[in-house]
C-alpha cells in the first residue's frame, strides 16, 4: 500500500480568516491525504515544530493579513536551521509581485484566491506524490530490516 501524503495546513500570525485554510484542508482530506490543521494564531516556530513532529510531506500556509513577506521567509529559514527538507506552499491575499518574490525565495507555489481545490490536489499529487511514494518504499525496506 502506498503511503498517504501528509500535509500540514497552518494559519500563522494573528489573522483569523480561516475559510480558505479549512476549505483546502477538507478538500485535501477528501482527496485521500492526511491533513493536520494547526488551528489559528500559530507562531512560525510552532508550525515548523509541528511539521517536523508530524513528519509531514508538505506545509501549506494561509495568510490574508498582509504579513506574508515576513512569515514565509521566517518559516523557510527555520526549516533550514532545523535541516528539515519540507516543501512549503501558500495561499491567501497576496499581490502578484510578492508571489514572484516568494517563489524565488523558495516557496514552491502560491495559490491565489479563486483557485479550484482540484488544482491544488493535482499540484500536490504531481509534485509531492512521487517523492512520498519513493520515500515510503525506502521506509518500508528499513522496517523489514529492523
Amino acid at each position, binding site marked *: 500500500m502506498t503511503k498517504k501524503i501528509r500535509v500540514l495546513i497552518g494559519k500563522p500570525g494573528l489573522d483569523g480568516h480561516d475559510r480558505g485554510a479549512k476549505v483546502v484542508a477538507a478538500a485535501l482530506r477528501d482527496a485521500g491525504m492526511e491533513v493536520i490543521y494547526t488551528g489559528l494564531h500559530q507562531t512560525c516556530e510552532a508550525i515548523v515544530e509541528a511539521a517536523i513532529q508530524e513528519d509531514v510531506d508538505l506545509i501549506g500556509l494561509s495568510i490574508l493579513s498582509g504579513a506574508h*513577506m515576513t512569515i514565509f521567509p521566517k518559516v523557510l529559514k527555520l526549516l533550514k536551521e532545523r535541516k528539515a527538507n519540507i516543501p512549503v506552499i501558500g495561499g491567501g491575499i497576496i499581490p502578484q509581485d510578492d508571489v514572484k518574490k516568494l517563489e524565488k525565495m523558495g516557496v514552491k507555489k502560491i495559490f491565489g484566491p479563486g483557485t479550484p481545490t482540484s488544482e491544488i490536489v493535482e499540484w500536490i499529487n504531481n509534485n509531492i506524490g512521487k517523492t512520498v511514494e519513493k520515500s515510503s518504499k525506502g521506509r518500508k525496506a528499513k522496517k523489514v530490516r529492523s
Partner: protein
Amino acid sequence: MAESRKKQWEEKYKSCPERDAKFTTISGIPLKPLYTPEDLPDFDYERDLGYPGEFPFTRGVQTTMYRGRLWTMRQFSGMGTPKDTNKRYKYLLKHGQTGLSVAFDFPTLYGRDSDDPFSHGEVGRCGVAVDTLRDMEIIFDGIPLDKISTSMTINPPAAMLLAMYIVVGEKQGVPAHLLTGTIQNDMLKEYQAQKTWIYPPEPSMRIITDILAFCSDHVPKWNTISISGYHIREAGATAVQELAFTLANGFTYVEYGIKAGLPVDKFAPRLSFFFNSHLDFFEEIAKFRAARRIWAKVMREKYKAQDPRSWLMRFHTQTAGCTLTAQQPENNIVRTAFEALAAVLGGTQSLHTNSMDETYALPTEKAVKIALRTQQLIAYETGVANVIDPLGGSYYVEYLTNEMERRAYEYFDKINALGGVLPAIEKGFFQKEIAKSAYEYQKAIEKREKYHVGINIFQEEEKPDIEILKIPPEVEEEQIKNLKQVKKERNTAKVKEKLHDLRKAAENGENLMPRILECVRAYATLGEMCNTLKEVFGVYREPIIF
C-alpha cells in the same frame, strides 16, 4: 376562473424547455418560475408589513427612510500609521463620504502592542496600528467628533478603543454624551466566525455588559454593539445562517444585559446590526426585511421591551468581500454595485462598498473612490431612494421574506436545543455549520452548479494588471519608535497604579469602563491593559474543527 388560467399557463410552461440550471437561491431555497398571490395564502398587510417606522418594521425603521435622509456612506478604512489613516479619512470626507469607519491592524484587534513579538510583520498591514491614546489623537486630528459619526471595528479590546475615543472627544471639547458612532463589540460572532479573541466567552460577555451599562448612562448616543452577520457570511455561511446566527447572538446579548440587571429598554435601543450583502439579489433583500421583522417581534413579545426604539433593527451593510475575484478585478466594481443596490432596497442605514482591488491588498485611493462613487450613483442617479421599500408587495420578495424567517426559526430551535448560543459555541455547532457551507459552496463552484464569472465561466488567461497599495515595512519601525517615545514621556508610576486599579476592578466585579478610561488618560498601552485583564480572565483556546 383565475385558478384555471394559472393551470393553463402552467401546462404551457411545462411544454417549453428550461435552461439547464439549478434554480435555487445561494442558500439553497428552491425557486419556482413564478410567484403569485397563491404563494402568500395568509398575507396580512398590517401584520406582516405595516408602515415604515412602525412595527414590525418590515418596510424600514424610519418613517421617511431615504426621502428624509440618505444612508450614511461609510467606507471601512485604515492602514499604516495613524498619520496615513488620518490622510485617507480626509481624502474620503473630501469626496463625499458621510461617516468614518476605522479598520485596525491585527495586533490592535488582538490587544497587542506594535512591539509585541507576535505583531511582527502585521503592524499597520490590515488596518491602522493603535498602541496608545496618542495614536487615536493623530487619527482624528482635524476631524470634529461632534460632526462626524465613527464606527470602530473592534472586538476584544472594544472597551479600550471606546475609552480612547471618549478621551479624544474630551480633548476636542466634545463631551461623551454628544459622541455618535459604533463599536463592533460583538464577541459571539468572533468565537463563531471571525476568530479574533482574547478572553473566554463568559468574561467577554461581562466586559460587554459593562459597556452596555456605562454607555447607557454616559455615552447615550453610542451604538454599543454592532451585532455582526458580516463575518459569519464571509467565513462561508449561507444567507439563512447569517440571518439566524446573527439574530440568535443579538438575543443572547439582550439576555445577558437583562441578567446583569439592566432594564431592556435602557440598552436595547443602542444595539445595532451589521450585515453582509451578497450576490443573490432578492435573497439579500428578503434577508434584511426578515431580520427587521423577527427582531421587532421577539423584542416586543419575548423580551417585553416597551420602547418602540428597542424593537427596531438599525443596520450597517458591507458588500461581500468573499464574492470578489482576483481574476478580472474590474468586474468587482459591478458586483459591488449590485450588492450595494440590494442593501439599499433592503433598507440599510449605513453602507460600505468594497473596492475592486481588495483580493490583493487594501484599496488604493482610486479604487476606494470608485467604490464610494458607486454608492453616490445609486443614491443620486438611479431613483431607487425615492420611494420607500419599493419591492414591498412583490409576490416573490414577500414569499422569500417569509421563507427566510421560517428557516431562521428552524435554526433558533436547533440552537435552543443545544442550550443556547454559548453552549453551542463550545460544542462547535456554528463553526461546523459554517465550515460545511463554505466547503459545499466551493464544491458547487467546482462542479459548475453555481457560477462565478472569471472563476468557472468566462475565464481569461492573462493576469490582471492593476495598481496595488503597498504598506512599506518602515511603518512598523516608525510605529514602534513612536510607542517608545510615548512610554518615555508618560508617568510610569501612574500607569502602574491605574493598571493595578483595573486589575482590582476585574477581580471584584465593578464596572471596568471608568478604570479603563483612567488607564487611557495615563497613556497606558493597549497591550498593557489587555494583558492586565488576561491575568484575571485567562485566554481562550478554540476547539479545532474543519
